[in-house]
């Protein structure tokens, strides 16, 4: 088998062993529907609520806030559409949101806030947009950007919202965040927080929306009234157990991992700059900075290179990476995030996202530095 250098953890990261073991064990142990009345059902229900407690505790929020979903997109949709359905009004988000936020906001005719050149929402810009709007009911601001890794100053932004749109609920898409920031404190002011399993070593298809107690939200899936009427459907007990195990491990080793991967990220970017010179422009990362930019993401722009062609060459060498967000067909679409930062479409075409995760090693970085520069040179000098 060819060797694989997997540098696409921001798209999805391998399931952690602890999560896999929990997943298998729970799937075997719990055959009953947790909403039933008998002992087997109560047993399953307990496993589900244990998972709920564990996730809440790890992220410093009350267990009653946890609404399990099928992942980040569902959590984002429940937050935005749930609030609009219950309260009406206008939704506002940053222009650098994931599509799972951007689409529901734009679909509802909401407004967007441009990013600054560091990939973040500037408080003044947010204030300007909110000041021009009446009846803002929800403001959604991504915690860690999925493309660039830029980390928003959520407390400062929350203060602006409280001041200029005091009735608005605050939502953050924290799908990329749990591994790279102390989400509990960063998002403490937020009423609604979306997370997902597969970005931190849990199964794809697991996720949750934290909903602050007392928040009125229209369910988006109607049925048997599960998750306190906020999300119908038989709960995925095994998935929740695995998700919880992954969250616990992630949070426990988070600081060590941030330090470890931050060093690898910087080595990777520095190595590319050393080998390719000014062809490489780091999009936001600054060496040593794991506070404003996720330690895991090396996003660079390669002048004169077509990312799609580069990804093909890298893939054929066993290096898995990505450019802008992939569309459903598998093609690379132009990045709305880079556009929101004011980066020209042509420049953005040369973007490459190398994202690290819990399985990343020094050897991966060495291999990437062996593979990427010759591929770039080949495209440039063809």
């Amino acid at each position, binding site marked *: 088998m060819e060797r694989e250098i997997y540098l696409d953890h921001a798209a999805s990261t391998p399931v952690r062993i602890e999560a896999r073991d929990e997943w298998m064990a729970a799937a075997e142990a719990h055959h009953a529907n947790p909403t039933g009345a008998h002992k087997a059902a109560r047993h399953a229900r307990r496993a589900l609520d244990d998972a709920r407690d564990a996730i809440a505790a790890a992220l410093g929020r009350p267990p009653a806030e946890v609404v399990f979903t099928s992942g980040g997109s569902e959590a984002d949709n429940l937050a935005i559409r749930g609030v609009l359905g219950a309260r009406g009004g206008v939704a506002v988000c940053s222009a650098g949101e994931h599509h799972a936020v951007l689409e529901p906001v734009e679909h509802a005719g909401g407004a967007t806030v441009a990013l600054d050149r560091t990939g973040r929402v500037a408080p003044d810009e947010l204030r300007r947009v909110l000041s021009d709007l009446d009846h803002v009911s929800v403001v959604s601001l991504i915690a860690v950007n999925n493309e660039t890794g830029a980390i928003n100053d959520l407390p400062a932004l929350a203060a602006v919202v409280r001041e200029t749109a005091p009735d608005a609920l605050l939502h953050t898409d924290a799908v990329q965040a749990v591994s790279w920031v102390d989400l509990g404190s960063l998002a403490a002011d937020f009423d609604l927080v979306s997370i997902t399993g597969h970005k931190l070593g849990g199964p794809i298809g697991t996720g949750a929306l934290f909903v602050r107690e007392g928040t009125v939200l229209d369910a988006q899936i109607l049925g048997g009234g599960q998750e306190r009427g906020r999300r119908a459907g038989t709960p995925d007990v095994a998935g929740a157990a695995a998700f919880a195990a992954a969250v616990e491990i992630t949070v426990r080793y988070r600081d060590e991992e941030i330090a470890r991967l931050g060093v690898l990220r910087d080595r990777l970017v520095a190595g590319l700059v050393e080998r390719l010179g000014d062809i490489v422009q780091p999009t936001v990362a600054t060496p040593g900075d794991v506070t404003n930019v996720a330690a895991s993401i090396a996003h660079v722009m390669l002048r004169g290179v077509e990312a*799609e062609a580069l990804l093909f060459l890298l893939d054929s060498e066993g290096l898995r990476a990505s450019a802008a967000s992939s569309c459903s*067909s598998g093609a*690379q679409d132009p990045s709305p995030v880079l556009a929101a930062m004011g980066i020209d479409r042509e420049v953005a075409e040369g973007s490459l996202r190398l994202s690290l995760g819990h399985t990343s090693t020094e050897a991966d970085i060495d291999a990437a530095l062996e593979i990427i520069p010759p591929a770039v040179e080949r495209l440039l000098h063809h």
Partner: protein
Amino acid sequence: MVMMSGGVDSSVAAALLQQAGHAVVGVTMKLWGGPSDTGCCAVSDVDDARRVADRLGIEHHVFNFGDDFERDVVAPYVADHAAGLTPNPCIECNRHLKFDRLFRRADVLGFGTVATGHHARVVSTRDGPRLGRGADAAKDQSYVLHMLDQTVLSRLILPLGDLTKADVRRIAADLDLRTAHKPESQDVCFITNEHGRRAFLGDRIPLKSARVVEQDGTEVGSVESVELVTIGQRKGLGLAGGTDPRYVIDVDAPAGTVTVGEKADLVTSSTPLANWDWTGAAFDGELDLQCSAHGTVERGTVRSGGVDWSSPHRRIAPGQSVVAYVDGLVVGGGIATR
């Protein structure tokens, strides 16, 4: 590299090359992001291409050339209609996307040869490679590929050239490919059947009404959208009726005039041409000429700026391609002008 559109032809092309021992990689171009219910760029077609590649055990990649497609195919299509022409966007897609953009991509990725599932042949001649008609006359696609120059032809493999469509479907069925019975794509991929050309153009340009006049200038009717009128058209001209059938013989979009005449007025002895290119050396004397994808072959002589027909010929809508053949091989092509 095999271009896989998600249809049966390119599926079989990939399978045949693989059987012949080539190391094959499948590529699907994503060209159109807007609504589509007719053509080749829908996500379901990409899925078909991917699943056929999976079935064959070959790698499959998707390249997004949406910006190129908009610039080189869609925008000129709209501009041509605005100018009263009748463009053929499939030819422009072949010219700019399939056999230029993708070939350049293949180049940088190190693919010496590229294959497609077109029904046509690459024939070696003393004057270099030439494009020949496909074995299945009803499916022959040499007309829409006429622009391929010898540099491209020397890198191109057309595995279906000697097969009929029935052969292709049988091979696909034998290999249990999911595209075996897939209907053929028709029409322009970015124009939906549901909304049509009028709605598509209307979203992008103001459609202008025009007067319908006889050749002596007498006004006899009107049309809502001059951009949608084409040579030879009989219906939708707002004519009173009671006369002999009237046909459009000229469209002057800037002046807002559509001229009609009798059937006999549809015939001409020469047609002006633009952008004529010979594939290799130029030819003197009479040639076989074809003016639509599966049209009849007529005789004529190509000279600077146009073609002289050997016998009276129906007028060709400006914007349509005229392709020249000698012994079934494409020797040149150009675009009819007004």
